[in-house]
């Protein structure tokens, strides 16, 4: 059953439009006055609307929050900088591209790191204003951009990282790229501002058509994936639009289309909740782009532009009803959805280590804790990847779990690559299953939304959880554990077996009851726990699980069966219940 089969709310929400609607409308197709701000030497930040508009160009204005108060006393503005999220559909990057981003991160960013993220791409953190144009031009010179990786648009399109089934993956990846390009803003603002591209004059210019996104763009962010079962590494239920690859005898024939997933919520606001996507049915390959556009335009026209907290596709579905939404998509795409084809998700993790693909090539998945590539004492991770890039003949694949795959290695090159990886701490046989199943968003010190630590908290937390598992003799087991610094969901804690959501410094809401394959939303178990309380709770729960569980029963399934937490079946009804 779908979450919204009975809803019959208005198709369009009337009322005073949110201020973001004004700024998009007045932005002259995402230009705003960004160029003036770039030449303003008095502040390292962007002003007013431009602060929001640069997101549509793939950047967020951030500052070093660790020293914000200190700088206030120093009569200095916050240490403004930008974070850039690249657009890399499917997360594939070539070695020469890698070497270029490695150099930029090393020379021109405050933190020097390359951050692999849950959007299956990389981020630069800490780029000062004078280096922003240089950054885009550097990326452009190697065929990378950051158009629409943030803001109210369709963002970077994810694709299952499965180099083993090489042929199917290649097809799926190509669709991810096509969908990304098809849904991209048509405005030339990005080229004009960052690449010194020619300006198109006036409202008569060709670009004044945004045929899919519209001149006001989307009501809210929009996320798309292409997924190849049984892997659910991209976490479909965190996304607005998902194409489930359906193969027949190893050939891709079409997609089941899932719409309306999303994990963001607002603390204390019960009209917001994480929600799974609904299955609309199967479409053959030829209709893929039409369906993608139809879903986006329906959400564009029906999404709530009055209240941004209820603007995502998931709320549109719950308001108008999934059947009504589906019928509109069919009308707009000129198709009729066939019944969904059967498929099954079995897990979400990456297979760390070497695997051999059907084509005889070898692939090495490197576990990168928190996705943060930086040279640490005794573990020069960033240098290690660069050294591999210098000799690697295949490509790299960034995963939605923030890991990195060295893909397409010939048998004779395996030993050399493995040596580099081991020498730089990129391969470590001692990494536990628990650590591989744990994830955190960035949070402090750079993310302006963070309410609590995430990335800096996770490694120590995992140490403690490993000790707890060992204490109860289940050290070989693991629990999907995710920490996110705020309720917006980058760390996808709302699809974890134990999800911790930042509430305040050192305080988290603890959610329980997600499952291994990522098809169940966990429910809040305890609110506002300190770090010690979290460990106490986990210890108590793991103690019971270790003794009382059925054969092979995962932690998330156990807590529901044991009545420790209620299952969230329909988010709107059950999540806050």
């Amino acid at each position, binding site marked *: 059953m779908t979450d919204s089969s009975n809803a019959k709310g208005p198709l369009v929400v009337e009322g005073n439009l949110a201020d973001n609607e004004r700024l998009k409308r007045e932005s002259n197709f995402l230009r705003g006055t960004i160029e003036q701000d770039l030449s303003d030497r008095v502040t390292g930040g962007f002003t007013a609307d431009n602060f929001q508009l640069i997101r549509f160009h793939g950047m967020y204005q951030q500052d070093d929050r660790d020293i914000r*108060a200190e700088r*206030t006393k*120093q009569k200095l503005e916050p240490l403004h900088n930008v974070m850039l999220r690249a657009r890399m559909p499917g997360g594939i990057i070539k070695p020469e591209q890698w070497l270029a981003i490695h150099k930029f991160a090393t020379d021109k960013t405050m933190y020097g790191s390359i951050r692999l993220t849950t959007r299956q791409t990389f981020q630069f953190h800490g780029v000062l204003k004078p280096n922003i144009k240089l950054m885009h031009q550097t990326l452009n010179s190697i065929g990378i951009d950051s158009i629409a990786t943030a803001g109210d648009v369709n963002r970077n399109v994810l694709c299952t990282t499965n180099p083993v089934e090489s042929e199917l993956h290649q097809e799926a990846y190509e669709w991810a790229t096509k969908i990304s390009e098809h849904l991209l803003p048509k405005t030339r603002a990005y080229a004009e501002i960052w690449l010194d591209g020619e300006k198109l004059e006036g409202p008569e210019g060709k670009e004044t058509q945004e045929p899919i996104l519209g001149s006001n763009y989307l009501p809210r962010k929009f996320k798309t994936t292409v997924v190849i079962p049984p892997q659910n590494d991209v976490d479909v239920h965190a996304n607005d639009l998902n194409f489930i690859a359906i193969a027949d005898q190893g050939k891709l024939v079409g997609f089941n289309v899932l719409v309306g997933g999303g994990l963001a919520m607002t603390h*204390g*606001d019960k009209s917001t909740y994480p929600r799974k996507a609904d299955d609309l049915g199967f479409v053959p390959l030829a209709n893929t782009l039409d369906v993608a556009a139809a879903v986006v335009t329906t959400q564009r026209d029906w999404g709530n532009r009055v209240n941004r907290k209820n603007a995502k596709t998931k709320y549109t579905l719950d308001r108008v009803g999934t059947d009504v939404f589906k019928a509109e998509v069919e009308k707009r795409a000129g198709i009729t959805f066939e019944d969904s084809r059967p498929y099954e998700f079995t897990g979400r993790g990456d297979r760390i280590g070497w695997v051999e693909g059907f084509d005889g090539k070898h692939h090495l998945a490197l576990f990168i804790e928190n996705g943060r590539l930086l040279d640490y004492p005794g573990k020069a991770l960033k240098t290690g990847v660069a050294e591999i890039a210098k000799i690697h003949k295949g490509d790299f694949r960034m995963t939605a779990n923030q890991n990195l795959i060295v893909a397409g290695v010939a048998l004779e090159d395996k030993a050399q690559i493995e040596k580099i990886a081991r020498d730089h701490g990129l391969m470590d046989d001692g990494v536990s299953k628990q650590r591989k199943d744990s994830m955190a968003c960035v949070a402090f010190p750079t993310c302006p939304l963070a309410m609590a630590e995430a990335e800096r908290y996770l490694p120590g937390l995992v140490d403690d959880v490993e000790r707890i598992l060992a204490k109860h003799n289940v050290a070989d087991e693991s629990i999907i554990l995710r920490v996110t610094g705020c309720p917006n969901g980058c760390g996808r804690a709302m699809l974890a077996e134990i999800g911790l959501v930042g*509430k*305040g410094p050192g305080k988290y809401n603890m959610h329980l009851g997600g499952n291994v394959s990522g098809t169940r939303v966990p429910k809040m178990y305890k*609110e*506002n726990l300190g770090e010690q309380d979290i460990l106490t709770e986990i210890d108590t729960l793991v103690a019971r699980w270790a003794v009382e569980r059925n054969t092979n029963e995962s932690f998330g399934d156990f807590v529901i069966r044991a009545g420790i937490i209620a299952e969230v079946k329909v988010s709107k009804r059950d999540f806050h219940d």
Partner: protein
Amino acid sequence: MGEIVMLPEQHLKNQNTSNGGSALDASQLTQLQQATANYSSLQLAWASGYLAAKSEQGQNAQVLPAPAAVAVAKTLTILYASQTGNAKGVATQLATTATDAGITVNLKNISDYKAKSLKSESHLLIVASTNGEGEPPDDAIEFHEFLSGKKAPKLPNLRYSVLALGDSSYEFFCQTGKDFDERLKALGAEQVTPRVDCDVDYDSDSQSWSLNIIESLKEELTQTDAGLAPVYDLPVTAGAASQYNKQNPLLAEFSLSQKITGRDSAKDVRHIEIDLGESGLTYQAGDALGVWFENDKQLVAELLATLNFTGEEQVTLKVSGEDKSFNLEEALTEQLEITQTAPAFIEYWANVSGDEALLTVAADKNTAREYAANHQIVDVIAAAKADISAQDLADSLRKITPRLYSIASAQAEVEEEVHLTVGLVEYDENGQLRTGGASGYLANRLEEGQSVKVFVEHNDNFRLPANGDTPVIMIGPGTGVAPFRAFMQQRDADEAAGDNWMFFGDQTFTQDFLYQVEWQGYLKSGLLTRLDLAFSRDQAEKIYVQDRLRENAQELFAWLERGAHVYICGDMSRMAKDVEAALLEIIAEQGSLSEEQAKEYLKDLRNAKRYQKDVY
């Protein structure tokens, strides 16, 4: 600060007919009319009494405080302390409601509000959210600190109310709002309606608080002629010369030392605040503050040890023309200069020690001067050992002299405080960290709350134009920024209409932009017309203020042609010279003048007091 002569119009007309040298001329009349344009009839009546009293008492007479029944245009100040925008939204709505009710409203983000203005407020509403574990939102940290600190003024004339936004799932629910409420109450302010603490669903609670408070205040804030206003004391200029001077410095309270360069800066620059208290000591923008300092006890100990003294040796020094006895440690700490080395000391010590190397240095005046500039007394002594009596050592050293710092504040803004911008002098000498005598004293050794001996050194050669409409060009890289901060405060307080153009430079934008947020604020308010910045180390090629002057040659010359005053403050040896060369170049090029004519042009500016320098 100066008193403006205020006369009601009818008095003026009467006197004007006689015109016997005592009536106002046309520009004075305009000034007066402008000054009184928005006075109410009651205020005009009061002003007439004030002036009558003044004419009877003569120029130096004390002014009587205003009678209690003066009505002033009352404003409702609404401050919001917002983290995510909720408090701002409520405050904005509240401001609209108040305005609709006919109330004059001053709505401000709490971070843009000068906390010191609190004491002149009559009505204040605060909408405050609370962060995570009970801390104030970032924007409110400073205000919160001020209100909880010892500088917070008594507020007996203030009527207020607080709306607190929070999340009851936190332990310290609405803490910031509660803090503000309690502090305002403790400072003597009167709560008009009780504080309301709102939870995440704040809409209805905040609305009813808003309606309630506006209803309560509506009557008193829309009356203009009733006698409810608080009493205001007009500022009184201290006419007579101060009793404090170099010989007789004021013992003032050292109230703040704040590093204002970022943590990754190569420099340590301090913003220093000194409280002049009830001393009556006054200064003007452009003046300098003399600071007496004590030497570092550790340095004194090192010096004593190098010469095998205990410090208990008795020495005689002339103090104010009389011989006085000190023990050596005391003399070296309080009386003698041991950080700045005189070339004469190099010569003296070379002879006493007979050290070959030092004798060579001393033989050439330039070499000796350079050596002296880079070596403190202890380093000279350590490099060339000699046997010397305590009295001989004392006699070979100069008496300590106070250091002068350009004042970085205007009293119109900071009242009884004086602010300085002090660069800590620090360098490495053979692995020893040496610090400047006075800058080390101010930056490292003095603690907040201790006393410091100061006096004002007037500088009439560095003054704002008398006419507030005259444009001003300020060139002050590094700590040369100090007097221009004072200039801006003064022009702000004067509501001077003239354009202001600041050139600032330093090493890096992120670490060394001294008083960055204040300059940003002045740009935003419109007081500062232009701000051009030169950060030498932010790019491959070095960029300095003189380069920015050249880039703006045409505009700069246009400002000069329309009467702008030009000020330079900062490093004498390089910056001031380079800037002057750039100015001459610009004048020659833009005015199509020869080099000689350009020099004439600048000389004329100097003679007209339109080109002033405070360099060191």
